């Protein structure tokens, strides 16, 4: 197929080796597509040069939505739809605090999780994107896409071997 991508996969056994390898390989001008690991490797996102996630912005915006929604809802209910006298006050605005707080937290949390699922493309019928399923067991898999790199396959292979990959494979993924 035309959309096939050719990958060079470097398999690493140890996360310390992997961290050093990522730095070294990026320095030699190779662009790494993604690294798949069985567990979160501390500092990996930094050596890969990833920017800090903007998920906190999403959380803030969802929280703000919940905040406004809660205030609007209570204002409408207690002022127009069904006015009530609470504690001798015909418009007890301080009583809005708990509901507003809860809806802010609820929408903030749900929105953040939802955003994360969408961005990461996580869904019940989804398939693992890992090019080598051993990355869910005990191996770290570094995927380098050939068409994104100027170096030849054999050059990339030798860079991977030099930086400590226990094996190097070629794989076509559609």
């Amino acid at each position: 197929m035309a959309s096939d991508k050719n990958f060079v996969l470097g398999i690493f056994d140890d996360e310390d080796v992997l961290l050093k390898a990522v730095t070294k390989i990026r320095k030699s001008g190779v662009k790494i597509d993604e690294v798949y690991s069985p567990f979160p490797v501390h500092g990996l996102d930094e050596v890969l040069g990833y920017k800090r996630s903007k998920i906190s912005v999403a959380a803030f915006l969802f929280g703000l939505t919940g905040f406004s929604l809660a205030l609007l809802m209570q204002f409408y209910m207690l002022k127009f739809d069904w006015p009530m006298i609470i504690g001798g006050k015909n418009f007890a605005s301080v009583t809005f605090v708990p509901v507003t707080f809860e809806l802010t937290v609820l929408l903030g949390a749900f929105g953040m999780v939802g955003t994360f699922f969408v961005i990461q493309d996580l869904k019940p019928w989804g398939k693992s994107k890992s090019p080598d399923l051993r990355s869910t067991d005990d191996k770290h898999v570094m995927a380098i896409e050939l068409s994104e790199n100027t170096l030849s396959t054999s050059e990339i292979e030798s860079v991977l071997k030099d930086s400590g990959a226990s094996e190097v494979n070629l794989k076509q993924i559609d």
Partner: protein
Amino acid sequence: MTEEKYIFTPKTKKNLVMLAVAGVIAVVLGIVLMQSGGHGHGDAHGAEAAAHGAEAAAHGSAVWLKRVMAGLWINNVFFIGVALIGLFFWSFNYAAQAGWSAPILRIPMAFSNWLPLGLILMLVVFFVGGHDIFHWTHEGLYDKASPEYDPIIDGKKEYLNTPFFLIRMVVYVVVWYLFAKKMQSLSLKEDLEGGHSYWHKIRVYAALFLVFFGITSSTSAWDWVMSIDTHWFSTLFGWYSMSSWLVSGVAMTILLVVYLKEKGYLPMVNSNHLHDLGKFLFGFSIFWAYLWVSQFLLYYYANIPEEVVYYWERWENGLYHGFWFLNIILNFVLPFLVLMTRDSKRHNIFLKMVCVIVLAGHWIDFYLGVEPGVMKENGGFGFYEIGITMIYLSAFLFIVLNSLSKIRLVPKNHPMLQESEHHHI
């Protein structure tokens, strides 16, 4: 950079003495203004105070003397709370087996050295001015024949009487201090001998202290703050005061860590550690606001006269009304907005700013707890309150820095030091 001990320089000592001297000048000025009816802020208030002067004189000490006692008591409660929180901070870090905080733990622990002087000051102020501060110390309240007889306060006398009050006060502070001394000496022995056994021993003491703290932090706040408004009570008050102390204590810890860091001490501490301290400040500020709202909301909602009167006193008076809003702005709105982003928790300048703001804010919180109950509508805020706080602050910092200069700033053989060095968030 690799200083092991903090050097308490003559220059720093001089600055602290200057702070105290400035405080004394402000106190004298404040008292003179109070006596001349100037009241420190505006003549309208002064006239009002003079009008009530005669009534107050018949009831006890002169208005200005009451205000002096109230100012002393606010600072007694505030600083002993900060000292207690230093011990609490150390203990919950040990109990939770926290590793990141290992190099800074001796700084909050040093706060606890304020406790002996704090207790003496509390006792002295209670013996001199207890009658002015605490309405329940009036004997007529318990005498059925007296026109002053108050059945509600009479019903509380099994708990709220002077001997038991004093016993409680002494027991609380002495036990806190004994815990502090025991854990301090274990930590110093660890410096000499190393090994993991001291860490485990401190952890046991820390856990025991937390149990004692859990109860006494609440009961001491009932005694020292809530009993001033004798009729009124709130089941949330203990936690509310504890959270106020907690934020102040964490803010004081951050200020001292940043100060020492900027002086070149604590080479191990970096922005990751500050970030965690900042999170504590941020989180506990929200916790305080949560308790504040929870307490206020139920009284507001239920609108029962004997409950609402506590807030009514603070709402109706022009002076307290302003502080009432300032309290929420300084202690919740500003820390919440400023410390929300990651970067602001990692930079000294934002942290210092917020710490100063919340320290002032929580002082105001205790001011609002004490002053309206003691002074009723004659309360004031002026040179005197600022001055007396400066004197207390100077003495507190002097004791803390002096005790820090006698030990290693960073526990040498703490088993978590390695973990703290690699702390990364």
